[in-house]
């Protein structure tokens, strides 16, 4: 009898735990909030992009693998920017000048914000960044659906997410 009484509680706990584990990171979570200035000094909040498919990208001008990735992102951005796709890049550059120069050189037209002090950057700490570049693909609901998707996977997932 006692066992029968316990079972629903355990089941409930299990469901609670399971659903918690299934919970996706969402950009509406205050811990993941990013609101940083662009090159002109105007703040842009990541959460303002809800409703779009977003690639959140952490990078720095001195990070050569990031610069190589930028070249590929330029093509993808051009292809999908008019269909509801946006890129929100957070540079952890200490030197604003280097960051601005890299944006020009890499012909970046998507959203760019700066969070100086490299590994001490608050946004990088909150998003638990351990290597540059790190990207997060976010659906229209604001859920993180992929981390560091490879080039091909990135494009197919963007297409799928834009249909949702």
């Amino acid at each position, binding site marked *: 009898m006692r066992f029968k009484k316990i079972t629903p509680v355990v089941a409930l706990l299990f469901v609670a735990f399971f659903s918690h584990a299934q919970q996706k990171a969402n950009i509406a979570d205050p811990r993941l909030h990013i609101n940083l200035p662009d090159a002109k000094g105007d703040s842009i909040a990541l959460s303002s992009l809800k409703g779009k498919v977003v690639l959140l990208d952490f990078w*720095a001008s*001195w*990070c*050569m*693998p*990031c610069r190589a990735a930028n070249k590929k992102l330029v093509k993808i951005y051009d292809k999908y920017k008019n269909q509801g796709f946006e890129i929100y890049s957070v540079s952890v550059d*200490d*030197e604003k000048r280097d960051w601005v120069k890299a944006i020009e050189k890499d012909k970046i037209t998507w959203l760019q914000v700066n969070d100086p002090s*490299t*590994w001490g950057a608050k946004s990088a700490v909150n998003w638990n*960044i*351990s*290597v*540059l*570049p790190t990207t997060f693909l976010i659906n229209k609901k604001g859920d993180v659906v992929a981390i560091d998707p490879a080039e091909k996977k990135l494009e197919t997932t963007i297409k799928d997410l834009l249909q949702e």
Partner: protein
Amino acid sequence: MVSVVISSPAQFTKASLQATGLTCAMCSNAINKALLQVPFIESVKSDIKNSAFNIVFKQGQNVEIDALRKAVEDAGFSVGNLKMTGNFQELKIENDKHIEIGKEIFHFLNVTEQVLNGEQTIMVVDRNFLTAKQFKKFSSASKMSCVQTGKAASCCVKDGIAADARVYHVTI
């Protein structure tokens, strides 16, 4: 016999460390994190311009150079260059001679006889602290076997150093 080992109250205060590896060392937070775990390290800052980590040591603590190398290697990288800065008081150094700084024994290579005073920076030229090519260049500066092994062994015990003592090879 006159011993060349002189104990000095010198203290290392900071260091500049370059790391090398198959991937971009500055792009990984692993080295930064590993260095911060070293007990005698106060702070670590990325020096992007010089592709180096600027390390500040805790005051009054013994700095073990090998612990810096271990931290970098545990993070999956190697030390490409390590420059140690310290405060010295009337520390006489001679080429190809051993000297005690703090609790460690140092063997100076490619230096002229001089007296170190105030803030000075020395570069570690031991194996695994620079590229193999650079190591070869520096290690040819001494005939003593401790250059190859980093241990005093038979070549240096005559200077009053224990055979198993770690000897760091450095230059200015």
